[in-house]
């Protein structure tokens, strides 16, 4: 299958939204030609606001726009949006329950050889701690488009994680995204693998490689609200749990799964994610390999657990 660019899809879907609803606007932090927010500029210049290299203000402006009835979508690299403007996101966006959509592009490790200053590996943890905030990490371009439709239809602050990985084909099928719902991609056992974002595709490749029916695979595109019920249902039937995410191993999906299970159905949880260290520049393949996130590495980890 051919890869489909999530960021291109993001730009295309948003440019449809600005054309269909005059209240939808895009705010750019001078990265529109990377994040593909420039699609909006091309179809409707008046709905494209250049906010310059100033993320804190960009987020605040979006809040003002939202509270007078405009529907702003704010887009930057995830690392700058989340870490530079975190106080603004908590105080101005979330505490006022503003209808602001925050888009973190170039999320995770795969940021086109840019190195540690550009990696966004804390965003799931940070955003999950904020009341009123929804957090979404889609796996492929179709799910991203479907999630954006829900974001448009749902009032309130939301964060969308957009991967730069261009190799992900549409693999989930046409089932629409639902906020707060996970998907069962394989139903076997006794190993339960839970993944989010585009890492779900790496897990799928790993399971194809292993050719096993001993694994249950859940994809969790909705990090907040989280599908606790689905997790518990499947965890009850499994002996081991593995989480996979392009995010620091602390917090994030692994943290959420471990928290829920420790309270409601204690299990041994193996978290696959980025180690507690800064990564350097590298190709996508190098970065995934180094952090145990490639399909091969994930397959190895699962194989070891199956052999236990």
């Amino acid at each position, binding site marked *: 299958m051919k890869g489909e660019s999530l960021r291109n899809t993001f730009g295309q879907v948003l440019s449809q939204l600005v054309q269909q609803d005059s209240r939808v606007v895009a705010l750019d932090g001078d990265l529109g030609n990377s994040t593909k927010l420039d699609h909006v500029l091309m179809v409707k210049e008046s709905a494209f606001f250049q906010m*310059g290299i100033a993320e*804190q*203000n960009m987020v*605040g402006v979006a*809040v*003002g726009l939202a*509270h007078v009835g405009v529907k702003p979508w704010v887009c930057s690299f995830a690392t700058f949006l989340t870490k530079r403007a975190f106080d603004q996101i908590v105080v101005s966006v979330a505490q006022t329950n503003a209808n602001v959509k925050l888009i973190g592009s170039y999320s995770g490790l795969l940021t086109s050889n840019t190195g540690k200053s550009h990696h966004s590996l804390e965003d799931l943890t940070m955003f999950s701690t904020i009341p009123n905030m929804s957090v979404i990490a889609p796996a492929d371009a179709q799910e991203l488009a479907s999630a954006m439709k829900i974001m448009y239809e749902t009032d309130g602050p939301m964060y969308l994680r957009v991967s730069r990985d261009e190799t992900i084909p549409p693999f989930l099928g046409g089932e629409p995204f639902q906020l707060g719902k996970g998907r069962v991609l394989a139903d076997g056992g006794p190993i339960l693998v839970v993944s989010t974002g585009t890492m779900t595709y790496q897990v799928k490749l790993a399971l194809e490689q292993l050719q096993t029916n001993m694994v249950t695979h859940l994809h969790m595109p909705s990090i907040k609200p989280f599908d606790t019920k689905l997790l518990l249902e499947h965890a009850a039937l499994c002996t081991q749990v593995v989480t996979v995410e392009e995010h620091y191993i602390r917090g994030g999906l692994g943290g959420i799964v471990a928290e829920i299970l420790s309270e409601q159905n204690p299990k041994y949880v193996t978290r696959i994610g980025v180690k507690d260290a800064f990564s350097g520049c590298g190709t996508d393949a190098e970065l995934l390999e180094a952090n145990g996130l490639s399909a091969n590495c994930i397959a190895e980890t699962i194989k070891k657990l199956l052999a236990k």
Partner: protein
Amino acid sequence: MISIQQLENHAVSIRRKIIETAHYKKQGHVGGSLSAVDILTVLYFDQLNLNGNEMRDRFVLSKGHVALGLYCTLAERGLIEMEELKTFDSFDSRLQAHPDMTRLESLDMSTGSLGQGLSTAVGMAMGAKYLSQSFHVFVLLGDGESQEGQVWEAASIAARYKLNNLTVIVDCNGLQQFGWYEGNQVFPPDQHLPEKFKSFGFLVQEVDGHSIASLQKVLEQSKQNRTNQPIAIIAKTVKGKGVSFMENNYLWHSKAPNDEELDQALLQLEVGGECR
């Protein structure tokens, strides 16, 4: 039209409420609330169009710690009950220590972490233009608060988007919570705000922030702004204005008066008296 004398009487009455509420709750940012009273009075009794939901003028209190001054103004204006002031800063109150728009619908923005209000006001003014609505946006900043870099990010965008429907008022009381001092000399947070706003593309007006007549004139003019520049009004004020022992004393940034101080303050704040 409301007379200057009436506005001055309201301002004195608001000052009394600030002192009384801070005394009653043993809490509150008294110094900055008193310095902002005349500005808030002219806004809420004369300049802000509060009618019409979407079309009403918007006001953002960026220096959110001065919530007490704002609530007392809202009470004087009849937008909340005087009695409710007693709940200020309490667990279930609509009158949170820092403004919370989700609890009190008279508020257009929640604030508290300094430096964020101007950005949200810029967003509102941009929204008004985008939606072709004619409301005006006012935002009150502190001079200390203007040390936050985000203020200047916002100022830059206000000028770039030609926001002539935005009026920035800086309550320049020359003191902040602890601030800059050498020996026993205390230095103002920033003496160069007029030049800075000018260099960021604003039309700048300097005004005595305790002269009701001057404030009325300059705010009215700002609402009629036909240029393509946003306006910054640098209002020179006195922290603790109206109570002699609080004036120009940074220790009254957030401190409640005791019984004796309350009596002394109220004696100085008599309507028609010499407090001005």
